C-alpha cells in the first residue's frame, strides 16, 4: 500500500508538471494525490465498493485542495486537477472499448455502467465540498 501511494505521488507530481503547474506547488499536488489514493485503497479494503471509495476519496481530496488553496492563496484547480486524475475511470473506458472489440456486449455494458457510476461519484464528491466552501466565501464577502 505504501508502495502504491508512492506510485500515486510520482504520477500526480509528474502530471502536475505536464499540466504546467507552478514549480512551488508540485509537491502539494503530489501529496494530495498520494493521500487521496491511500484513502481510496483504505476504503476499498474496508467496504470493497469502488463507488463509495471513489466518492470518499474525491470528497476528502477536494477538502484537502480547498484547504491548501486557502493557505497558499492559490486557485483550487492547482491541486485538485492533477490529484483527481488517478481516480478518473480511465481503465473503465479502455475496458469498454476492449469488450466492444471482442464483441462482448454484456461486458461492455457492465464496464460502461461502472464507468458512469465512478464519474458520478467523482462529480458529487467534488460538488459537496465545493458548495461548503462557496458558502463560506459568500459569508466572508458580506
Amino acid at each position, binding site marked *: 500500500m505504501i508502495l502504491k501511494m508512492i*506510485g500515486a505521488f510520482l*504520477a500526480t507530481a*509528474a502530471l502536475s508538471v505536464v499540466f504546467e*503547474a507552478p514549480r512551488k506547488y508540485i509537491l502539494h499536488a503530489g501529496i494530495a494525490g498520494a493521500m487521496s489514493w491511500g484513502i481510496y485503497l483504505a476504503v476499498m479494503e474496508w467496504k470493497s465498493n469502488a463507488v463509495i471509495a471513489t466518492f470518499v476519496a474525491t470528497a476528502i481530496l477536494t477538502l484537502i485542495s480547498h484547504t491548501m488553496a486557502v493557505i497558499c492563496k*492559490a*486557485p483550487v484547480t492547482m491541486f485538485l486537477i492533477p490529484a483527481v486524475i488517478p481516480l478518473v475511470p480511465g481503465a473503465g*473506458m*479502455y475496458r469498454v472499448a476492449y469488450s466492444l472489440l471482442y464483441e462482448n456486449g454484456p461486458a461492455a455494458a457492465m464496464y460502461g455502467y461502472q464507468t458512469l457510476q465512478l464519474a458520478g461519484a467523482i462529480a458529487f464528491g467534488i*460538488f459537496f465540498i*465545493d458548495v461548503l466552501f462557496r458558502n463560506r466565501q459568500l459569508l466572508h464577502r458580506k
Partner: protein
Amino acid sequence: MDQKLCFETAMLAGEIALCSGSEIFRVEDTMSRILSLTGTDQVDVYATTTGIIATLKCTDGTPLTGVKRIAARSNNLNRIYLVNEVSRAVCAGKISMEEAYDRLCGIREQKEYKAAILNVCLVLAVMGFTTIFGGNRYDFIFAGVTGLILVGMDLLLSKVIYSDFMKDLVKTMCIAFTAGVIGNFVPMVHSEVVIISTIMPLVPGIPITNAIRDTLQGDYMSGLARVAESLVMAVGIAIGAGVGLGLFTLIENSILV
C-alpha cells in the same frame, strides 16, 4: 481611472484564464472583480467555454462591449495561477492598471518548464500509473517504453495532424499495438496494465472535472460543451485502443497460423 484600459485588462485576463483551461466561474469572477474597479455599477460578463462577452457602462454613459472568441484550449495551471495573482494584486491596489496589463501580456507567452522536462515527466507519470493499476516491476519498466512512444508520437504528430481527435486516436493506436507486442515477447508484462497506464494522461480528466463543476454551478452551456469535449476525446481514445489491439491480434494470428 482609465475605464478603457481597465476593460482591456479584464478581457485579457479572461482570455488567458479560459485558454488555460480555467473553470467558467473563475473567469467570470476574475473579470467582474477587475471591471468593478472602474466604479460603475453596470458591469456584465458572460463567459462560455468557447468565448467571452463583456460589457461596461462608462461614467459618461457610453457602453463598452467586447467579444473574444476562444478557439483552442490547453491545460496550463501556471497561467491560471499567475492571472489570479495579478487580479488579486490589482484589486488590492498593490499594482496600477497599466502594470497589470503589461504583466498579463507577459503571462500569455510564458512557459514554466522546458519541453524536455515536460516530456520526461510525462514518461514518469505513465510509469507511476502502473503501480496504481496493480502492475509489477516489469510493467513499471515497460510502461517507460510505451511512455517514450507517447512522447515521440506527440512530437511527430504535432506538425502533421491538427485535429486533437485524430492525434489521440493515432497515439493510442500505436500505444496499444506496442503494448500488445511487448506482452507477447515478455510474458511477465500485463499488457492491459501498460496500455491503461499509458493512456491515462490522454484521458479527459480535466474537461470532465470542469464539466461537473460548471454544470453544478449553473453554467449549463459551458458544462455541456465540456461534456461534449470529453466525450469526443474518450471516443477517440477508445477507437484508437480498439484499432491498435485489433491490428496486433490480426498480426499475431497470421504469424501463428
